[in-house]
């Protein structure tokens, strides 16, 4: 149950530093990542911040300063963060967390700078994920910054998927871009003619190559593919006009036109020739699925950075709001606390801060999960080849057995031996992590950016009129606008909700989700102040509602949970995201509690830091539970037709003369009966009160959830006290 004890621990002493973040986000033992963070931070708060201050965002054109920014990324190791050491990088192994951390640091100052760095990775990602060994070795090496003594420029790329209307955008399955056979001489590599128009293509102004999605326009080519186009290829590599976007102006976006002749070995992942037809090894959908499920997480983390970066400027502004006025004497409460004298200012910032922490926790958890998944995915691919399984359908079929085993692992009472056997099974581990990743990725992209944008608006409002000026410290208005693009690009919100609609109902995910409910109850019993118990109840309510909608029908007899019924499915997807974010937040705080004492820096003031982070969890848990309760109640009751004052409706009402009789043997019934009809007159309201099949269970849950909120506002009050008292630096460490 929620905390009811008032903590004696004081307010957190300073804003959380690197040592705290490294534990929360699990990279305290990764000095390669810690260095990347410092390096990206120096670029963000140095050259990038100066560019923003100098007005480089005020033009859509690609300027020398923006080009120089890319060179700065190269020199600082940000470009090389995507590469393996042998390709010119410095980080070995999966890089999802690394890229997320770098993007977080850049987006702390400017989202466009982060996007510019990510766009290069996005262009390379199809080659990295699905390219042939030759393609990968060639392009990764050229895209790495030159090593000492090497005389060459860094090759930059753009990912060209989206096209002018009517097709690619929301639905990436349809393409207008075409690839045809231009020449095919016996025994030689076929030459292909690629016609592709792009729209909103990032990094196009500085791209030396593009990875473009195209469909076959020739009977001698089967299906779609992604193909690599270089600026020196024969034909037209026109970068097009810059997009007049209002956000992310430090990154280049344009509408290019490609009409190029390229060899067939540029098809990403290669091809085979069957019966005189070129068959790409991967369709464009297979390539982009592998790419986006990773890069979308990074975008979500960018919005988290905006929220957390807003905390310090808002506190400084609010504390110093009245200083300088003749009537405000130094040392007075008004001088010291400024606007922070008002509870509302403190508590609204607590909400912004809590949302930022929850979204960062969710995003980094997803990034770490993909770091675990990447090697498993490669092992899985190798096992499939070994077993002679090819094609996605055959693979799905082959993995069914592993899914059954995974469910056994999650649900069964197993012997130690059997448990160890299943835990050591690569494919079991793969299907488990894959099922979770298929939910965490769209959840991060959807919730972090959507709720992040709403909370950025709140942060801007906390700066008053200053918030919507260019002079606002922390560039909060820019960040608010930028967040809206983050909610849109790399798959807008509807795409993420649609994906969740499918993945969140997978039995493997739901089995893990049930385990997470137990996990939260366990944490709650050990550490009641985190809101874990509240969350567990909200999670139970979500699961109950999902089950209800999957089986239930509306007043017209139509199924509630249905692919086309987005009023139900999308709402449940939204609700789930709130829950997942708080769960990750609570787990991070638990990690801090477990490991903080071992770190000499973190252990100083650890009790206060833990208390504050727990209070943020509790606050966020209460907010999430409120959202889930509202959404679930709407879904459970909202699809029933409200009874009317008609003959059918009257059946559920009392007649006043009946009640008089009942009062004789049921004393008090007169005072509790609400729907009473008397001489054809009924109470002044829409109709007799509605009931709902199964509603008793739901009402019990809702009632329980309401009582689980006990203590959450006390937690918010304590968190607000930290916002009031926490020591902040004298000045922001980047120019405004």
């Amino acid at each position, binding site marked *: 149950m929620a905390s009811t004890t008032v903590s004696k621990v004081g307010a957190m002493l300073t804003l959380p*530093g690197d040592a705290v973040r490294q534990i929360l986000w699990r990279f305290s033992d990764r000095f390669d990542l*810690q260095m990347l963070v410092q390096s990206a931070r120096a670029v963000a708060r140095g050259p990038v911040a100066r560019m923003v201050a100098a007005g480089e965002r005020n033009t859509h054109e690609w300027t020398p300063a923006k080009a120089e920014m890319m060179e700065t990324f190269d020199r*600082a*190791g940000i470009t*090389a963060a995507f590469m393996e050491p042998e390709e010119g990088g*410095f980080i070995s192994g999966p890089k999802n967390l690394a890229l997320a951390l770098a993007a977080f640091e850049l987006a702390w100052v400017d989202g466009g700078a982060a996007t510019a760095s990510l766009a290069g990775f996005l262009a390379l990602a199809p080659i990295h994920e699905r390219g042939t060994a030759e393609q990968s070795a060639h392009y990764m090496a050229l895209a790495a910054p030159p090593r000492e003594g090497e005389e060459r420029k860094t090759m930059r790329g753009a990912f060209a998927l989206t096209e002018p209307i009517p097709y690619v955008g929301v639905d990436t399955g349809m393409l207008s871009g075409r690839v045809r056979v231009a020449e095919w001489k016996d025994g030689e590599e076929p030459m292909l003619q690629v016609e592709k128009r792009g729209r909103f293509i990032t990094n196009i102004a500085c791209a030396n190559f593009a990875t473009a999605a195209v469909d076959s326009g020739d009977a001698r080519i089967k299906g779609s593919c992604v193909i690599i186009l270089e600026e020196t290829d024969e034909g037209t590599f026109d970068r097009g006009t810059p997009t007049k976007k209002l956000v992310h102006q430090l990154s280049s976006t344009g509408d290019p036109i490609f009409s190029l002749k390229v060899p067939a070995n540029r098809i990403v992942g290669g091809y085979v020739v069957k019966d005189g037809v070129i068959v790409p090894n991967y369709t464009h959908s297979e390539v982009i699925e592998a790419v986006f499920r990773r890069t979308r997480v990074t975008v979500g983390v960018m919005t988290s950075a905006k929220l957390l970066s807003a905390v310090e400027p808002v506190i400084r502004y609010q504390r110093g709001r009245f200083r300088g006025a003749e009537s405000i004497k130094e040392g007075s409460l008004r001088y010291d606390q400024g606007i922070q004298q008002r509870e509302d200012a403190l508590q609204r910032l607590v909400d912004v801060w809590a949302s930022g922490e929850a979204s960062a926790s969710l995003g980094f958890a997803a990034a770490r999960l993909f770091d675990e998944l990447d090697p498993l995915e490669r092992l899985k691919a190798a096992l499939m080849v070994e077993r002679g399984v090819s094609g996605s359908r055959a693979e799905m079929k082959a993995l069914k057995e592993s899914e059954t085993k995974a469910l056994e692992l999650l649900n069964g009472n197993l012997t130690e031996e059997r448990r160890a056997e299943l835990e050591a099974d690569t494919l079991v581990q793969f299907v488990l992590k894959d099922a979770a990743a298929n939910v965490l990725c769209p959840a991060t992209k959807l919730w972090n950016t959507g709720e992040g944008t709403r909370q950025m608006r709140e942060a801007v409002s906390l700066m008053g009129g200053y918030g919507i000026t260019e002079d606002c410290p922390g560039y909060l208005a820019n960040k608010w606008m930028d967040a809206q693009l983050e909610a849109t690009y790399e798959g807008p919100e509807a795409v993420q909700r649609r994906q969740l609609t499918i993945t969140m109902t997978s039995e493997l995910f739901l089995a893990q989700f049930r385990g997470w409910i137990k996990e939260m109850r366990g944490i709650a019993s050990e550490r009641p102040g985190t809101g874990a118990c509240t969350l567990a109840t909200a999670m139970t309510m979500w699961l109950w509602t999902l089950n209800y909608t999957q089986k239930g029908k509306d007043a017209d007899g139509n199924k509630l949970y249905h692919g086309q019924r987005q009023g139900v499915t999308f709402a449940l997807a939204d609700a789930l995201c709130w829950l997942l974010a708080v769960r990750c937040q609570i787990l991070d705080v638990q990690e801090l509690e477990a490991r903080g004492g071992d770190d000499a820096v973190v252990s100083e003031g650890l009790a206060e830091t833990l208390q504050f982070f727990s209070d943020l969890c509790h606050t966020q848990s209460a907010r999430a539970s409120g959202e889930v309760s509202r959404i679930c109640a709407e879904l459970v009751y909202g699809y029933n037709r409200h009874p009317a004052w008609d003959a059918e409706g009257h059946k559920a009402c009392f007649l006043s003369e009946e009640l008089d009789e009942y009062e004789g043997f049921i004393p008090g019934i007169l005072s509790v009966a609400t729907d009473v009809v008397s001489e054809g007159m009924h109470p002044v309201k829409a109709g007799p009160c509605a009931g709902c099949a199964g509603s008793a269970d739901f009402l019990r849950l809702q009632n329980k959830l309401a009582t689980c909120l006990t203590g959450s506002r006390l937690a918010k009050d304590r968190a607000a006290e930290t916002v009031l008292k926490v020591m902040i630096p004298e*000045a922001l460490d980047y120019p405004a």
Partner: protein
Amino acid sequence: MANGFQIVVCASIVPDPLQTLEPAAGANGPGLKNEMMLPAVLDPWAAAGLYEAANLAAKQAGSKVYLVSLGPKAKLQQVMMTVAQKVPFELVAVDGPLGGFTDAQATAAALAEAIAAIPGLERERMLLFGGWESASRGAGVTMQVVGERLGVTDQFQGVDQITVDADGSFEVLERVEGGKHQVSVCAGAPAVLGWATGSLPEPRNNPQVGMANMRGVMPALQKAKSVKLDANGLSYVSVSLPKQQRETRLVKDMPEDEIAREIVAWIEE
């Protein structure tokens, strides 16, 4: 210079200057409020010495740079994530207390002991670099005492430049009053150079350099010797931050000649 120099840079860590620095009394004397939790940086004066050392080592074949740093090793580790990306060096870490209020004699003794224990260090090739000043409380004597303890008596303070000749002798520019430099020529190592700002910019972060340094940094931190610094009878009566002085005037439309005259008059005061 046949074998190059062995340049030992003594550099402490100090709170990031943007942080709120509020003196606070602790169990072991004065300190800064929440000092352990504040982000730290390499002391800027000593950092100038480190960059000059790396520059000199790059020009003098066979030279090597050691960075000797005394501070809580958890804080040192955090600072190294940035510093190690700047220039190549080998870290010698000494796990000791944080803060600018330790006794300079005790600090110098701990540093000298750590330097003396560096395997393979040849005194006749050693240049001892450090900060002339400090961003915390500069005692102004630490480097001199370290040098004396190691028997290095050629000492230069407020150094802005070193130029090495082929025979290993070098010319040093030391700051003196009036914006001028005193030029000295030293026959060769060993010598102590307390750096002012030097003339080099802060090198950019380079993770490749960082990864190479890290191979030595992490083991050095793990085996850092723990030291306690004696107060040696030192006590502080009071500690306070320097008062901010603001002498800004807002004047509109002042002619350039008049501005120039005013500046000259101010300089002549």
